């Protein structure tokens, strides 16, 4: 029954103490939270602890979530990233980067059938958008988001002027925002931007390619 409910509906149930609603939310987003935490920390044990911590926080603070301010997934990934970056900073682990070119390519073929269609489409769109960025712009974005580095730290890490980092970051974010903004479809509804999936994904999921074309 709870499987079909929206995230916001599930949060209302969670706020009333419904444990099943939280488990449903975990089934929906556990993989995203765990994978993001792992990407930041590169440690399965710590990723597990972050995931547990994030869902405990959702349980405890469900009543404080305001759907008017942000989408649930924005809130969830913010908590996850912040928690993982906190641990990363404490451990002073540096030198990791975000998913590299090779990793992204394999991630698309691995972005498996277990993902929901919306989830899958979102993942494809973001990876495609990142691939369209010039490598130096993408690098600063990944160092900031996945490694929790400030602009000054990135400048020191890459040994380039701070101004260059600021410019690259701004340009990269503007391009990502443009590529990832929902575009209106012919029926007037908002839908995610079209993506150009890798050939392997097209072969495995031809029906996805057809739907992608609608948004062009």
């Amino acid at each position: 029954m709870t499987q079909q409910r929206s995230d916001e509906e599930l949060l209302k149930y969670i706020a009333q103490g419904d444990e099943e609603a939280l488990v449903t939310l975990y089934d929906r987003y556990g993989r995203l939270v765990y994978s993001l935490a792992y990407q930041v920390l590169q440690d399965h044990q710590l990723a597990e602890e972050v995931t547990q911590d994030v869902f405990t926080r959702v349980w405890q603070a469900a009543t404080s979530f305001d759907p008017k301010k942000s989408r649930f997934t924005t809130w969830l990934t913010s908590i996850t990233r912040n928690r993982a970056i906190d641990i990363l900073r404490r451990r002073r682990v540096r030198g990791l980067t975000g998913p590299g070119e090779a990793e992204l390519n394999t991630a698309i073929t691995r972005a498996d059938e277990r993902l929901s269609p919306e989830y899958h489409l979102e993942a494809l769109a973001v990876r495609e958008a990142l691939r369209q960025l010039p490598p130096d712009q993408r690098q600063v974005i990944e160092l900031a988001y996945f490694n929790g580095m400030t602009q000054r730290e990135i400048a020191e890490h890459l040994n380039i002027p701070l101004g260059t980092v600021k410019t690259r970051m701004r340009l990269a974010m503007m391009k990502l925002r443009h590529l990832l903004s929902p575009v209106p479809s012919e029926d007037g509804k908002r839908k995610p931007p079209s993506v150009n999936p890798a050939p392997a994904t097209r072969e495995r999921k031809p029906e996805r390619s057809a739907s992608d074309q609608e948004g062009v």
Partner: protein
Amino acid sequence: MGEGIAAKEHTGAMSDQAHRFAWDNLPAYALGALEEDERRQVEAHLRHCSLCQEELAAWQETAHKLAYAVPFYDPPSHLRAVIRHVVAISPQTVAPAAVSTPRPARGNELASFLQRPYMFLTTLLILALGLVGWNVRLHRQMNTLRAEMSEVDEMRSVIVEYINNPSAFEHFTLEGPNGARAHLLYSSATNRLTLITDGLPWLGEDAVYTLWFHDGSGQRVLATVFRCDRTGRAIVVFEPPFPLENVTEITIMPSRATTPSSPVLNGRLKRHEGSPAIFVSSAL
């Protein structure tokens, strides 16, 4: 007078400057890439600039999508059960009822509002829904209390039974550093295990410990989750996840991201023919 105008112009210029600074730095702010002082400047401006607040929401939406770029991994299968256990013993933040009543209108506005029949009925309906929601919440709280009372009863009966007939129990002890200790009492008659701890490190109000059972094949299974008081004491009664004779090792460890997750207590089960099984605590 002239000084006042100059001061206003100066304040306006400062405000424009602050707005420009915040506006330009919103993408980096959304990525969490600003230095502490820059972050504070942006936040000070955000407090009273709705334009920047709106713009920030869009940048945050973009930044959050980067999470989808990561290669996906399946979380370990036991994590679902851990989370279920943890939430079962974690209190929720108390908040107002999910359905809120409308803001009270004043004077004549209230009267004319209530005179409109459909609005009056809607108000009644909302209030009724609010009461139902409150009632459901109360019902859940009572169920939780009942479950807690039943746990206390069960603990009391185990202790009384152990005092009256200790031979009906298998008793294992695990000892760790700094006086950390755990006793496990197993009753084969009820197939219930009672865990009693003392001297475990204090983890904080929200943090919990997990107890894991290992079998001979290298698999570990979550047996229970518990919270201890400031002296490291806890008592919990539970059913073992698999027959006790298959347990080769037991581990107690904190289960929080903010604390080291290395075991606090660990012991291997040693069995000798003709004598009761014992746990040999590992040096940690």
